[in-house]
C-alpha cells in the first residue's frame, strides 16, 4: 500500500491530485519525515533536470527556515479562511435552536442535527410522496403520526459526556462490524479544527449505473 501513497505523493507534487486526496496527503506529509524527505528529493530531481546550475542542491534551507519558524508564533485558526463547518455541533453539546423547518409532506422526518450541512446535502430529508405515509405496521396506524417530529425545545442542558459515551461503548458491542468501526472511530475523533474539509467522492450513483 505504500506504493499507492508514493504514487499519490508524486501526483501531488505535480499538482495532479484531487483536492480531497491532497487534503489527506498534506496532513501526512506535514508529519511524516520520510515522506517529507522523499518530497524533497523529488524537488532535487526536478532541479537537476532543469540544470539549475549554481544552485546548491542539498542546501539546508528547509532546516534553517524551520528553525526560525520554531520561534515564530503558530498561525491560529483565526487566520485561516472561514471554515464553513464551524457551526458543527459536538455530540456532547446541547441542540438548542437546532430545529429545522419541516417540509410540506403530510409526514416528514426531520433531520435533527445541528451540523452545518455538507455541500449539496439536503437539510431536510423529504421522505415520502404526499399520500404515502410512513406507518410501521397497519395496527399502529393510529399512532402513525408519532413520526411527525415537533420542533425540539430550546434550552436543553449540557449532557454529561460520560453518559452518552457509556451508551455508545455498550452499544458498539452489538453493531455490525462495519458500523461498529464507524461508531467507535467517530467516538475517537478529535474535535480540533485541523481536520480536512473535503467530502468524499460520492460515486454511489456512478457505480450503480
Amino acid at each position, binding site marked *: *500500500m505504500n506504493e499507492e*501513497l508514493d504514487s499519490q505523493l508524486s501526483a501531488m507534487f505535480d499538482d495532479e491530485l484531487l483536492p480531497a486526496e491532497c487534503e*489527506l496527503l498534506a*496532513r501526512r506529509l506535514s508529519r511524516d519525515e520520510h515522506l517529507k524527505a522523499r518530497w524533497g528529493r523529488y524537488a532535487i530531481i526536478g532541479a537537476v533536470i532543469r540544470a539549475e546550475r549554481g544552485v546548491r542542491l542539498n542546501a539546508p534551507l528547509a532546516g534553517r527556515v524551520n528553525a526560525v519558524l520554531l520561534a515564530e508564533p503558530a498561525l491560529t485558526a483565526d487566520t485561516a479562511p472561514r471554515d*464553513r463547518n464551524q457551526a*458543527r455541533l459536538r*455530540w*456532547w453539546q446541547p*441542540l438548542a435552536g*437546532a430545529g429545522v423547518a419541516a417540509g410540506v409532506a403530510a409526514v416528514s422526518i*426531520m*433531520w*435533527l*442535527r445541528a451540523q452545518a450541512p455538507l455541500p449539496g446535502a*439536503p437539510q431536510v*430529508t423529504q*421522505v415520502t410522496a404526499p399520500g404515502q405515509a*410512513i406507518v*410501521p405496521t397497519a395496527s*399502529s396506524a393510529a399512532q402513525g403520526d*408519532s*413520526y411527525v*417530529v415537533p420542533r*425540539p425545545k430550546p434550552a436543553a*442542558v*449540557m*449532557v*454529561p459526556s*460520560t*453518559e*452518552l459515551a*457509556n*451508551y*455508545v*461503548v*455498550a*452499544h458498539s*458491542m*452489538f*453493531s*455490525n462490524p*462495519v*458500523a461498529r*468501526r*464507524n*461508531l467507535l*472511530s*467517530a*467516538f*475517537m*475523533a*478529535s474535535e*480540533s479544527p485541523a*481536520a480536512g474539509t*473535503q467530502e*468524499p467522492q*460520492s460515486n*454511489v*450513483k456512478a*457505480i450503480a449505473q
Partner: protein
Amino acid sequence: MSRPSRSSGRLASLALAWAVASVAAAEEAAPKRPIEYTPTGWLERMDQALTTRNYDGTFAHWQGGRVEMLRIIHRVQDGTVSERLASLDGSGREFIRTGANLTCYLPDRRTVLVEQRPAEESLVSFPTVNDQTATFYDIREVGHMRLNRRDTHVIAVSPKDEYRYGYQLWIDESTAMPLKSQLIDAHGQVIEQIVFASLTLSSRIADSAFRPEISTEGFQWLRNDATPHPQAGASALAWSATNLPPGFRMTVRSAQILPGSVGAVDHLVFTDGFASVSVFVERQSAPSGQPPVPESAAVGSSSAFSTVVDGHKITAVGEVPPATVRYIAGQLKAQGAAAAGR
C-alpha cells in the same frame, strides 16, 4: 503409432511420460476458477474477516466534513478478542479492548472509562444478514474494481425505506477486508466513509500492541461493576417495545451497571439483521441537580435519542437515522406494575 519393436518400448515409455506430463500440464493450465460468492456471501466473508482475523491498519475516517486518521489493531487469540482503536490526530483518544474489558482513554477530558462487559456477551453475535434482511435491504454487487492495487468487489446494501442507512463496501477479493466503506443516507449522499491507507494481516500480534501510550496520571477513572444489580432481573422484564419499524426485532436483553450510573440499566437491542439500535432504560434519579440528557444527539453518523417515560430515562442509540431511534425510544413501554410512580 506402430513402430518397429526395438524402439517401441522406448517410445511407449516416452509416450507414457508425455501422457503423464501432459495431464499434469493440463491440470496446471486449467484456469483456477475463483469461488464466486453471492453478494450476501461477500458480506458474510467480510464480517468473518473483521471479527476473526488478526490485522493492523491505518485508515481515514471521514464524517461531517472532517477527516481523521486512526489506527486499528485486532487480534483473536485463544478465543479472546483484543482490539485497539486509536486516533492518530492528536486527540490521543484510544479504545482498547481485551476480552470483556473495554477501556476508553479520553485524555482531552482527563478521563478513563472502564467497562467490564458480561462474559456471556461474547456468545452473542452481532447482527447477521439472513433471508429476512433481503426484505428490507437490496443487496447486490455493483462493481468489481481495483482499489489501491487490490481487486475488490463492490457490494451495495440499499435500504428499502428510510428507517435505515445504506452501505457501499469495497471488499478485498482475497482477504474479504473492507478496504473502503461508505455509509449512505436516503438521498444517496455519502455521510461517512472509511478508507484504509495501510492494512496488514498478520499471524502474530504481540500483547504490547494493545498497551496504551498515554499517561493517565491525574485522570479520573470511571468504572462499572460487572455484577448485575440485584433488582436487575425484575426490571428487565418490565420493558419492551411494541410496533417497531419493519424488520426490527429484539435480540438481546440484559441488565448492567454502566460507569458513573447509579442503578441498574436495562439494555435492549433491536436489529433488522444489519442495523442495530440499543435502548437503555434507567430509573430516573432525583431531578434536582441532575441535568437531563438532551433529546437528540449524534455520535458521528449514529443517532441517539432520549426521553423520559414513567420516571425512567430511555435512551436509544444506533447507526440509523435520527427518526428511527426517536421512534423506537418512543415505543418502549413498561408492562405491569413495575413502572414506578404509577
